[in-house]
């Protein structure tokens, strides 16, 4: 009976750990990426600063909404999927922006070298 009880509690413990990791460090990282990614897609507003300042100011709210969803969604798998999609989308946006910036820097550095050849 002890073995049966132990075996039965293992998936429960595993789920608890999974939920804890999801609502803990994963949630924080995803919220941070959503905040940072918002600089690229949020509207700038009349002073051209909203896309920077508003996500920083609302970071606790971003985290809290995500935390409660990831903690309370009965389907753990679905919660993981939502977190993963948010992570990939925002990380992708940020990565794409880095690539664009680096490419622009390289072409800017290359342009003066092209001129003397004329």
């Amino acid at each position, binding site marked *: 009976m002890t073995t049966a009880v132990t075996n039965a509690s293992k998936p429960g413990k595993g789920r608890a750990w999974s939920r804890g990791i999801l609502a803990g460090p994963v949630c924080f990282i995803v919220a941070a990426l959503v905040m940072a990614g918002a600089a690229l897609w949020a509207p700038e507003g009349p*002073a051209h600063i909203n896309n920077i*300042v508003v996500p920083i100011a609302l970071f*606790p709210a971003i985290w*809290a909404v995500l935390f409660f969803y990831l903690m309370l969604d009965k389907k753990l798998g679905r919660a993981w999927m939502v977190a993963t999609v948010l992570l990939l989308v925002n990380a992708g946006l940020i990565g794409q922006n880095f690539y664009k910036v680096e490419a622009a820097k390289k072409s800017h550095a290359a342009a003066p070298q092209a001129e003397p050849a004329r």
Partner: protein
Amino acid sequence: MIELSKSRTKELLAIHGWSGVLLGLLLYAVILTGTIAVFAEQISEWSSPLSHATDKLPEKGIDAALRKATSEVDPEFHEDIFFFSDAAGRIRMFLHKDDKKDGKPEARGVEFDLDPKTLAVLDRREGWADDISEINVPKALADFFVELHVSLHLPDPWGLLLTGVLGLAMLVAAVTGFLVHRHLIRELFTLRRKKDVLLTRRDAHVVAGTWNLPFSFILAFTGSYFSFASAFAIPAMAMVAFGGDQEKLIETVVGAPAVENKTAAAFGNIDAMLADVRARSGSEPGFVSISHYGRADAQVTVSTSPREGKLVGQTYLYKGDTAAFIQQKPALGVVPSLGNDLFVLMAPLHFGNFAGLWSKVAWFALGFAGAYVTLTGILLWTTRRVDQPGWSKLARAAYWMGYGLPLALAAVPLARFIAPVLGLNVHGTQNWTFIAAALLSSVVALIVRDLNTLRRLLLGATGVALLLMPLLRWLCGGPGWIAAFDGGLVTVIAFDLALLVAGALCVMSVRRALPMATAPALKVQPA
């Protein structure tokens, strides 16, 4: 209040309980020190008063003082200058440049403390900004409490990240507490004090938590914003939007940077600029920032204190070389925006410094309530589990932190006054005294078995420390009440009286025995 299913309520209650249990003791420390830090300005006035009281920049004389200061420092430190009325009215003037220390951006320069009446130099400190603050004696006591609150005296960014996480824990506890409490309004006035310890503890926590709910939410939200903004949010946004250049981010977000012109130019009259600010705003200039002093592109930014009936002040821009008014602008950006509105609201909502003493008293009372909620929550948790020996350690730790932390904090002002008399470094002595008092209370907490006796010992010692403070302040060279009254130093007298009252209350509370839960006496509560 809100109908939730039984299983949902159970989940939310578990989140509420575990977030409090895991982080509650540290959260209590942050809230308690924050409550004290509300009066940071008054703490400096009390511990390091000048002979006369003032908290405003003088109407004349700053221009001459500024020119004298700039002539006495390396011109590289003319890059950025700021000044404002700081500890007990001393004008703190920092001439500096932005540099890099161990790869991280850090200011380096020369800082002066000026007498607000005579503009005489009271102190001169030189070096990196962090090192300078370590030798700022007038601010030493206030800074101790503020730093403990902001980062638990841990190095950046870890301290800030930790306090940020604690703020989020408080946010979670406030939201879940609101959701699970089905009879929020109905039980608003019910505080049962019966033999049932569990019931008493439950009511104490629930009533305090319910009343304090709006402010718990506001303080948790704004507190975690402040921690995370500097710990990682600003660097992260700088990385994404400005290639890692934090200075560029700040310049862009603050708005209206001057067009670069390195031609040397005489600086305009700052007294005239401040007089113009007073006339335009109807309030006092608070913080004055000068960029590129001595150049044609010098710019002066003046932030004012809030006008009567307003939560936030205004910001004015002047051309540094001609003293000509450029524009009034929001704190961030050059035109009004949602970003600016959110940014400027964070400080008054968190610090409670928008209406002088009135708002500070209110914030102090609410902070105290917040600390009470946190501690009673942990005690409720351990009382519910009094028949589980493992949780008794947490109960003991709650008593140690709950009553030991105030004792350790009360020991710090005693060190502040004794250190200069003994020729010791003030900051270092404060830190070691705090650690020693905390260790002493830990030893007492380990030795004394009965929790009521532990409470009485720690509370009694705190009371004695509080009662000693005014006497020690005076004996170590501080003004007596008559001199304080003559100099208009009302804060000195008020603080002394408040400490005497608080000390007396602590000592009187020692006589009261609190009912303790024991396993056989524990009643099982219906779900």
